[in-house]
């Protein structure tokens, strides 16, 4: 690039978790059976009316506060009118006039540096039905129709695909930390619209904005931005910048390119107006205060805490805050008395590796912090070796039995000096030639003797004590 600067803005749609849909009493849950989570209102049968789910408003307000937005005095909704087969009412209930939050900002970390992201607005709306296209027919599944969606719109404040994706990653984490969404891109719970323009490095006016709609993974957001920057740059270089049109494109995963959908000239007039079936709802200060109390410690704060107070390395802290589950697990470990570094080690080296291998989450992981404590406490006491600890850890999760069942007297580490003395004496008596060689300078044979002791004790001998005894006897 060099001479041009790219400017990127994001729209991030995130499905909220809730018992029921945002304007319907139908269940809000992922369901493999099409059209199972459906009430008459979800299919817009004549005479049905929307009823706001207060839980969704609460979650939307919570996110509005997390993003340091201004909340409106009254909550109300607007209709966005357009015809599409996935939109049964012929309009979507959304917020245009008074979004749940406006003018926010949040600081994120991009490659170790702080970046302030400006939030234009965040608003609550309903999702559309999903369409399955076949050769001759298309099928409509209304399970998703009416699922609560939070749409977050940033200012055009990103200058690279890295920044944009770092923000999306961080927001995904925030949604999870705040318990407002599972934010699982694989389940289609997050979808993004991205707009990209380029401009001369020293220019003050933004270039022509091109929007890419409905990108379903962060990797694709990254690729789409970079492709679009490249496409626009090439046109500008070739003196054909006027061919960059204000238009809507879509990202084609297979080719890694963006494809034109429609020009701005054909943009739909959504004829927004206030939804008359939902009365204005006063948002009181007291309610906001109450919601505020539910905002948990966010990843950036946690990271600082781990490094400055618990003495973790930044590298380790970064891994732990990546997922709220990790952070919660780690904090619970620390709370019940596991040494932070030990807990971090277990989590990063053993547990996360295991989860990835098995493709499961911490929720399905057998060894809770309390069970892990059974291992680490014995390790601290020296009753078991770290090798044994590892074995117990593995056995426990394989067999689904508490670690303490494996920490019995016969597999406990042998730290008894008398017992070890007699074992070592036996070994030394049977290895006279090696002793001679050792005394003649083959000092690396020391490890050979240690190995023999370990072999004899099936690895249960306390290595420190063994080494002490051996040194005394040999030197």
């Amino acid at each position, binding site marked *: 690039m060099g001479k041009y600067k790219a400017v990127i803005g994001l729209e991030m749609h995130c499905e909220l978790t809730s018992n029921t849909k945002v304007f319907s009493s139908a269940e809000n849950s992922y369901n493999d059976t099409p059209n199972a989570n459906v009430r*008459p209102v979800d*299919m*817009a*049968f*004549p*005479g*049905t*009316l*929307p*009823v*706001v789910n207060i839980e969704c408003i609460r979650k939307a307000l919570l996110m509005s506060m997390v993003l340091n937005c201004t909340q409106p005095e009254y909550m109300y909704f607007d*209709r966005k*009118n357009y*015809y599409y*087969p996935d939109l*049964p*009412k*012929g*309009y979507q209930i959304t917020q245009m006039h008074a979004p749940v939050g406006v003018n926010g900002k949040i600081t994120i970390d991009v490659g170790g540096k702080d970046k302030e992201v400006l939030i234009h607005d965040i608003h609550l709306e309903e999702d559309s039905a999903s369409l399955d296209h076949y050769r001759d027919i*298309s099928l*409509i599944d209304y399970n998703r129709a009416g699922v609560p969606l939070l749409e977050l719109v940033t200012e055009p404040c990103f200058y690279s695909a890295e920044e944009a994706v770092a923000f999306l990653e961080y927001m995904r984490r925030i949604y999870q930390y705040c318990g407002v969404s599972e934010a699982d891109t694989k389940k289609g719970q997050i979808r993004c619209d991205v707009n990209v323009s380029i401009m001369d490095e020293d220019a003050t006016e933004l270039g022509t904005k091109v929007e890419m709609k409905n990108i379903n993974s962060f990797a694709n957001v990254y690729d789409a931005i970079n492709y679009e920057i490249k496409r626009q740059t090439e046109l500008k270089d070739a003196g054909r910048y006027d061919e960059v049109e204000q238009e809507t494109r879509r990202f084609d995963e297979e080719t890694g390119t963006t494809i034109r959908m429609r020009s701005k000239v054909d943009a739909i*007039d959504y*004829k927004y*107006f206030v939804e*008359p*079936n*939902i*009365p204005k709802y006063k948002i009181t200060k007291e309610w906001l205060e109450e919601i505020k109390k539910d905002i948990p410690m966010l990843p950036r704060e946690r990271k600082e805490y781990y490094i400055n107070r618990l003495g973790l390395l930044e590298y380790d802290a970064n891994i732990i805050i990546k997922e709220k589950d990790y952070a919660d697990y780690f904090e619970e470990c620390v709370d019940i008395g596991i040494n932070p570094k030990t807990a971090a080690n277990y989590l990063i080296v053993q547990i996360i590796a295991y989860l990835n291998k098995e493709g499961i989450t911490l929720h399905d992981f057998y060894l809770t912090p309390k069970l892990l404590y059974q291992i680490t406490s014995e390790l601290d006491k020296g009753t078991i070796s770290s090798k044994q600890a590892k074995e117990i850890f593995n056995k426990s999760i394989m067999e689904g039995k508490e670690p303490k069942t494996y920490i019995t007297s016969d597999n406990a580490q042998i730290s008894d000096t008398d017992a070890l003395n007699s074992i070592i004496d036996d070994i030394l008596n049977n290895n006279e030639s090696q002793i001679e060689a050792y005394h003649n300078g083959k000092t690396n044979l020391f490890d050979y003797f240690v190995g023999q002791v370990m072999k004899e004790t099936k690895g249960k001998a306390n290595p420190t004590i063994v080494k002490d005894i051996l040194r005394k006897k040999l030197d």
Partner: protein
Amino acid sequence: MMYMNKAIEELHELLKSGEVTPEELVNESLKLSKEIQDKCNAFVTIIDKPKIMPANENMLSGIPFGIKDNYSTEGILSTGSSNTLKDYVPFYTATAVKNLEKCGAIAINKTALDEFGMGGTGTTCHTGTVHNPWNLKRMCAGSSSGSAAAVAAGVYPFALGSDTGDSIRKPAAYCGIVGYKPTYGMISRYGLFPFASSLDHCGCLTRSVKDAAIVIDAMKGIDKNDQTSWDSSNMHLYESIDGKVKGKKLFYIKNVVDLENYQNPTEEFKKHINNFHKTLEILEKCGVTVEGVEIDKTLLNAIPSVYVCLSCAEATSNMSNLTGIIFGPRGNGENINEMMKDHRTKGFSPLIKRRFVIGSYILQKENQEKYFVNAQRVRRLIVDKMKELFKTYDGLIMPVGTGIAPFLDNPKDSVSNDDVSVLEEHLQIGNFGGFPSITIPDGFIDNMPVGINITSNCYDDINVLNIAYALEREMPYKNQIAKESEK
């Protein structure tokens, strides 16, 4: 012995004493339905075998009634009198209907309306024109045309209506019966096919004020399916009617009902206005003070256009679900857009299409501020003006329309020129403010009934009913059944 011409109170006594059974009432009502259908074309569906409900302590138990066909009724065809829903059989019942069924009332038929309530003539139903039982050559007005015709003809003591501009209260006047829409949100709209949500009201048509109170007592109630509904459980309309109106103060809009303000009024119009003033005298004799109040003509003249703007805009959006994809007949076409277009092109009457065009135009980004937002502002101004007057007065009293029901073959006669438009359209004020509003018959001109309307502040339903009841008591039109005339 005929029963269906009687009031609910009386029928209830007869049922309780065992003199008549619900089954006999249903059979009589069904028989009358068929007769009236031949004459007036009032029904979309006559229910084959209505479910007989036993008579009990509830005033409405065992009483037959009609349902306007824009109420959703489970298992019973509900068309909104539109070809777009000509085969639509819902799988849920509107809350208001459910509430009546809980009382033991028995639905006999579904009545015809101007397509989706969007008309005032009874001529745009997909099943054809509805005729006025007083004179079959005349219209019933609309949109609750079939309900008004059936109640006036004595098919049953009450029928459900809906009212977005005057759709209950004008047909009531043209058919010589009572039409009442309570305060917005007193009755749940869940299951009422929407026309313009912020103006739509449920209500009823009856032949007496007390019957109207009994019916609304049963229909009303907060509903978890309608967020605009409110709890009125402490309001007992029927029990609260005592006819004590001495000391009440009403006003009429003087500049609208002053004959001197009209150039070349017709004889009919003069009779109508004079009849109105005569009715006021009756009220005054009851101890009610009635005063004329001048209201800025500019504000009044804005009423019809504000109504058109807001109702068409909301209607355009509300009826976007009618695509023939999920329900209603599938349109033909190569793709989904063509199919929707075909369905809507064939399904809607020209009148509705015209309103959709107006609504879309008004909502367009470049026009919204000028038309839609301004209409909302003027709506507010009109409502504020009324609320200000309601501080001094217990209600507004006005004649309904400019005279009697016009002839069907010459409806243009009635179409308002600017002179009389306010008089034709002032009932829309009741929808702007969500005010309780009732029309009762107050006389005849050329053997055709005319009506008078009383409108009051929100939540003041009991007051409205009481004044109407006191007036009704002093006039001979209570429980009147249409007598067909040839004129």
